């Protein structure tokens, strides 16, 4: 068979817009073919990526979370022993509503109370979430039904939101925090479970659709990535969480609490055999791309601090030297 001369990338739909932008520039500014990037979701990406070494397997996988231990094991089983992790930046997860409604100011604790499956009642005992209106939680919050459109349980964004926003609020209850030490499983179950009585609505993976639905329903809130807020700032507004507005700068300096890192993973064994991988990595880690004013920021990526960038860039360059 003829050797493959085109990079194949799989993985997260969150990283997809950034990876494609890099791939396109890479294709246009070099003699290599533009890589093919499949949007399979982080988990699906690892599944394909870890299937083995060789022509028919992907070279790079994008992920909106770090690789899991089970996935590393699976990789190793299939002979994918060396992989390199590259963190590319941050993604803010925002809660937003239509501009025709009022901007919401909310804390993570309140988010937990609004969206968790079980919440502590006055005595601190866990009960099924009784709150129907925002104002039931706190009179300062608006007086209408809790209705939040967000990604389904199968989505990485949903996991991140649960971990950062819900757990962040959850921890603030001392009783529950204590649970963390005694019964870690229970702790996680309490902090990560999203209510299923209709207040939280699984709305599929299409964030544009959520935004359009918000426009149609001013009382509803949506949970989605920062780039969608950025692009639709004329119609939707991000809620302030813990007093922080979801702004580019606030996410970049880490003061906005709900943001998560994005990654991609490279299969070392393919470097040198599939042409262009190193050059692609170079393009991605170039400041023109992921720098503070790189083109990826236009696409909504929140860049890492300079030192962190330098660290990953060095790692990538080391790959090239090694082969």
């Amino acid at each position, binding site marked *: 068979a003829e050797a493959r001369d085109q990079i194949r990338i799989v993985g997260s739909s969150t990283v997809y817009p950034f990876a494609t932008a890099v791939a396109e520039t890479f294709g246009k500014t070099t003699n290599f073919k533009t890589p093919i990037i499949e949007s399979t979701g982080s*988990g699906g990406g690892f599944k394909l990526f870890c299937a083995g*070494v*060789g022509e028919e397997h992907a070279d790079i996988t994008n992920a909106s979370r770090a690789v899991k231990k089970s996935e590393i094991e699976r990789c190793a089983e299939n002979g994918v022993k060396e992989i390199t992790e590259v963190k590319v930046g941050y993604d803010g997860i925002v809660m937003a509503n239509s501009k025709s409604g009022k901007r919401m100011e909310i804390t993570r604790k309140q988010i937990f109370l609004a969206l968790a499956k079980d919440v502590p009642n006055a005595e601190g005992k866990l009960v099924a979430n009784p709150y129907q209106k925002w104002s039931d939680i706190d009179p300062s919050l608006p007086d209408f039904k809790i209705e939040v459109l967000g990604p*389904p349980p*199968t989505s*990485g964004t949903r996991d991140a939101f649960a971990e950062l926003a819900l757990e962040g609020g959850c921890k603030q209850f001392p009783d529950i925090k204590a649970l963390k030490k005694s019964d870690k499983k229970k702790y996680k179950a309490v902090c990560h479970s999203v209510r299923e009585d209709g207040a939280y609505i*699984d709305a599929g993976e299409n964030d544009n659709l959520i935004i359009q639905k918000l426009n149609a329903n001013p009382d509803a809130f949506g949970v989605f990535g920062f780039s969608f807020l950025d692009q639709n700032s004329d119609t939707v507004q991000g809620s302030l969480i813990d007093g922080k507005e979801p702004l580019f700068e606030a996410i970049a300096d880490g003061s906005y609490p709900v943001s998560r890192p994005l990654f991609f993973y490279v299969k070392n064994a393919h470097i040198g055999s599939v042409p262009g991988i190193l050059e692609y990595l170079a393009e991605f880690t170039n400041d023109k791309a992921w720098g503070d004013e790189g083109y990826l920021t236009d696409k909504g990526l929140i860049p890492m601090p300079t030192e962190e960038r330098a660290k990953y860039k060095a790692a990538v360059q080391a790959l090239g030297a090694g082969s």
Partner: protein
Amino acid sequence: MQTTIFTFTVLLLALIGFYMGRARAVSSVGGDIRQLHSLPRHYGYYVSLWCGLPTLFLFILWFIFEPQIINSLVLHNVTAINDETSSAMVARILSDIKFIAANGTNVKSATPEMIAAADHYLELKKIGIACLGVAVLAFAIVGLVIGNKNIGEKLKARDQVEKAIRVLLLASSIVAILTTIGIVSSLLFEAIRFFGKVPLSEFLFGLEWSPQIALRKDQVASQGSFGAVPIFAGTMLISFIAMCVAVPVGLLSAIYMSEYATPKVRGLGKPILEILAGIPTVVYGFFAALVVAPTIRNIGEGWGLEVASESALAAGLVMGIMIIPFVSSLSDDVIRAVPQALRDGSYALGGTKSETVLQVILPAALPGIVGGIMLAISRAIGETMIVVMAAGLSANLTANPLQAVTTATVQMVTLLVGDQEFDSPKTLAAFALGLVLFCVTLCLNVIALRVVAKYREKYD
């Protein structure tokens, strides 16, 4: 590459065989083709078949067995492999070797032994191809000669050729069976693994569906979060709503077009309706989510009803619109196929058109209409996009069309393309859903076929 050349060679030989066979047949009767059993060209086909068919089998055998033979030969020389090596390990080494063979020695895993194995591999490949070439050529030529030799005045060439075609026809209809086998087998193994983690009874009768909890390994099914009842109930609710739209609208349109409308209206109307079936479902999805759902919500709230912003009603209504043509086009055909004699019978008794349609034509056309509706239901059950966009993914067990529900296909798609984990029941659940859905529709179809057959017996 080489195989392409071989293919063309064989095709060329077959072509030559055709002309040889034809010529031989004609000359065997001294040019008076009337004495031949079959037409000269049948003798041509006959020789071509002799030339091509055995070679085709050879090709197939080669494609199945060549990799296995070469693999075992290559691995034979690799010292890293002994009897205890796990099969996963063997496969990995093999893929490494092939990778080296394809991409050269600057690959990371390239140890000298591996490189040698890769060279060996390439060598064997070359030999294999050469063998294939010789064998193919030999088979084709021998076939050609045998076929040619068989030709004589008495050879029933047409019968032989037709036999071959018949086998081909049979093979085509077996593709449907093979597809089914493929589908079942690609679902079955994963589904069995799923049922190893979640008991079948819980899956079939559990009332709660919540794959989110299962993501955390420790709690898997113990909380009963894999009960498929709400999913199938949702599937039925949405399909039912869709049918409530599609059946009356489709059937009435069909009746109007076939019984009342002028041929012109009918000629134009049918293709226009058929466009509805071809519009991509994403479009319907947007339409349902952004136009229909808010409208329903507004109306509902005007009436003081509790309406979820994502309702089964919105998804069902729009899905109903999408499948209108399945009902209308197929019903139109069967209604027109009802013999005129029945209409005449009713008219002659003083029946009006509507009475005739409702009391005579529809009952007579029922089996066909049921067939069309079955196809429409199939489509409704299999639809994904509209539900994802308009009804959401919450697995509520409810019969209230104003609430959000979800369907089996939607869950399958989300589970399969979402963030999955190896071996997690969450991913495997998709396969189980698929398998159960397959069985359900199979039962539905068997029943429908029986019902239709029964009606036929009664009324034809």
